[in-house]
């Protein structure tokens, strides 16, 4: 059974600092997703990572995937207040539905 663990679950960052959110999954997965959720809103797709060594960047966010370690990371560079949200990673294998981590609630403070 595929399980997904994220850490940290809560993260308070100062503006301008860098930080990384970690996502571990328990069994072989061929797709790893990162989503953002603002309070009271639905999920916004950030990245889909499909292969070992995949790295994708959008603005201050960069995601990577290491399938051998069963680990994905979401790196935040020079955080700004607008990045405050909850970030979820999710994994799946084959045609199975996504399994979500518990989410990381990020708060960027001045």
């Amino acid at each position, binding site marked *: 059974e595929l399980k997904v663990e994220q850490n940290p679950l809560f993260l308070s960052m100062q503006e301008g600092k860098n930080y990384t959110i970690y996502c571990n999954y328990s069994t072989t997965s061929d797709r790893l997703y990162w989503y953002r959720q603002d309070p009271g809103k639905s999920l916004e797709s950030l990245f889909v990572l499909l292969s070992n060594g995949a790295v994708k960047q959008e603005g201050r966010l960069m995601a990577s995937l290491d399938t051998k370690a069963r680990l994905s990371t979401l790196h935040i560079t020079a955080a700004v207040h607008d990045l405050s949200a909850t970030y979820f990673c999710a994994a799946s294998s084959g045609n199975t539905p996504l399994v*979500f981590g518990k989410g990381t609630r990020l708060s960027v403070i001045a």
Partner: protein
Amino acid sequence: SAVISQKPSRDICQRGTSLTIQCQVDSQVTMMFWYRQQPGQSLTLIATANQGSEATYESGFVIDKFPISRPNLTFSTLTVSNMSPEDSSIYLCSVVGGEGQGLEQYFGPGTRLTVT
């Protein structure tokens, strides 16, 4: 990307009643799912909505409580039956993008349900 709409966007219902949530997609999709997100929690898969056949339910979810219809490749409904306050959640419809969309999985805006 697939554009998904859900109705209603929110509702307040009394214990013991039922609510049907509609999900409409702007393109034909093979895979459609229903998720639940309880307050402050992550997403939990309720079921996979199969076109032309019965939905596939995850452990802990049953058809009598959450009947699902999927009459075609663009539409599905989820009914929350005999509601109790524990059913208060956001219910989200999700689809996997079609050809050329790189296996993206998209989510609808959600239906926020409060049961009193």
